């Protein structure tokens, strides 16, 4: 008897929550990016758990793609952070106040 799959889901949702909170409350752009990674990872847990539960590997395939995407996202995101840092001299989001209203 293995662990009920919904426990994985709960864990995943907790991780997702952590990611969301990070996005909502961290001012540091790099932290925000990490939070996003966290969220994607959280989703991956569900895919793997469900895939096993369902007797498939499609979920795992999906995870591989998500990891790819996450990597790309992180790379581009970090590049943008660097570019932003060059211009603003900071990565604090509080300074991004030009667009509003």
């Amino acid at each position: 008897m293995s662990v009920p799959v919904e426990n994985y889901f709960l864990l995943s949702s907790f991780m997702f929550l952590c990611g969301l909170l990070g996005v909502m409350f961290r001012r540091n752009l790099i932290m925000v990016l990490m939070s996003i990674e966290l969220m994607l990872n959280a989703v991956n847990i569900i895919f793997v758990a469900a895939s096993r539960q369902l007797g498939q590997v499609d979920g795992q395939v999906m995870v591989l793609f998500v990891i790819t995407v996450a990597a790309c996202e992180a790379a581009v995101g970090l590049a943008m952070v660097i570019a932003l840092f060059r211009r603003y001299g900071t990565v604090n989001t509080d300074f991004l106040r030009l667009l509003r209203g």
Partner: protein
Amino acid sequence: MFSFPVFDSAFYLVAAPVLILVAGSLVALMQSVFKPISGQGAVELVTTGSIAAALLAGLAMPGSLQDFVAGALLSGALSRFGVILILAVALVVCLMMREHHIAKAFFRGEVASIFLMLLSGMLVMVASDDVVTLFVGLELASIGLYVVLGYIQPNRRSQEGAIKYFILGSVGAAILLFGFALLYAACGTLRLSEMVAALPAVANHGWAQLGGMLVLAGIGFKMALVPFHMWAPDAYESAPTGITAFMATTVKVMVLVVALRMFTAAAVSMDDVWQPGFIVLAALSMIVGNVMALVQTNLKRMLAYSSIAHSGYMAVAIVALSAAGATLPVRAILFYLLTYVIVSLGAFGVLMALETAENDQLTVDDLSGLSKKSPWVALALTVFMFSFGGMPPTAGFIGKFFVFNAALNNHLYGLVVVGVIGSSISLFYYLRLVVRMYMGESAGAPFGAIRPVSRIFSVNSGVMAFAVIATILLGTVLPGVAMERLNRAATEVARK
């Protein structure tokens, strides 16, 4: 269990637009490296050429429903509709870009390459029945957009917009993915059509419901429905106007096609989740979008809020999807989308025609007295505003007519009333532009003059003229014909 994909001619026929774009992007990439072929003209040629070629291929796509590579690639009328519309927009935008002050920066090898790749991502997403492909395509498009939005000619504003869009967009994607994960867990499949077929059996299960709602939120995010709309104004405002035009239209096309695949057939089984969800989102969007647009002075930002409101109208029709066998809501959405795309292109085209490198954030004040400086441009913008506002005899009216039609057919009286109120509010700010153009004195733009539109024979003028004519025709003689043409795409997804 493992079915090896067959790459026959039929496959290539369907995949051709994507492949052509990828090929084009590779060539463009080369151009960014090799000086001799990196001239602006050459890049223009490659970009425009490959989009045009892809468009031709898209036109040649079969309209019959058929899937390839285990559903990862899907032909059919709806796919075709999306592919053609997206490519047409891309082509028009590329052509308009040539006359824009940003042309030099845009037609660089690497930018063009990214543009073509993200375009291919959109096509992939539109022509797919598979969550994996869909997600990859979505990310391809999104990441590409983040970049072209902010870094063609980076400045503070565009960078800020890009990073904000990036953060919120990634969160949105994560939410969508979360939803798909739960649906996967509940339905046991990653193919949209199978998922949709399996949903009724598990409709009451928490996973399906949560997953459905999360997917709805994700889609709502990409459609820029309130309260998931926050990215849109910033992104629209900060992007070069050509990219704004591109984004404002293609993203909606892309997402709505997916939404139709998702929600149409499954709608009934998930009615108690999706219907109220969309009702809330639609109502909020129509109200908030219009009210917020009321106080904007930056034109692009105003149009962003207005596009939020328009998404709300389309969402109204989505709510109405659950009627059995009714292709009307689907067609209403497609028609509305079509008119929205045409009119938006026209409106942003006007902005592109007017702005200069020094003054690329036009405000309402900049339009003062436009009717005297450039009467035809003013006339075109007026037609677009009336169409956005839903006044006959423009396409915008017919669009609203169909949407209300679909909604009332489903007894969504409250939503229609909200829509009516929203429309009335919207007319105020649309007409404000008209007032400025025709009824205000030319106050002299505070930040440098707008560009005088002298060339009649330019792409910009052509696009404006085309959009005006199309808007009027779709509002007068053509709607019947158009709706018939959309029928095929609609029956494809309508619940049997």
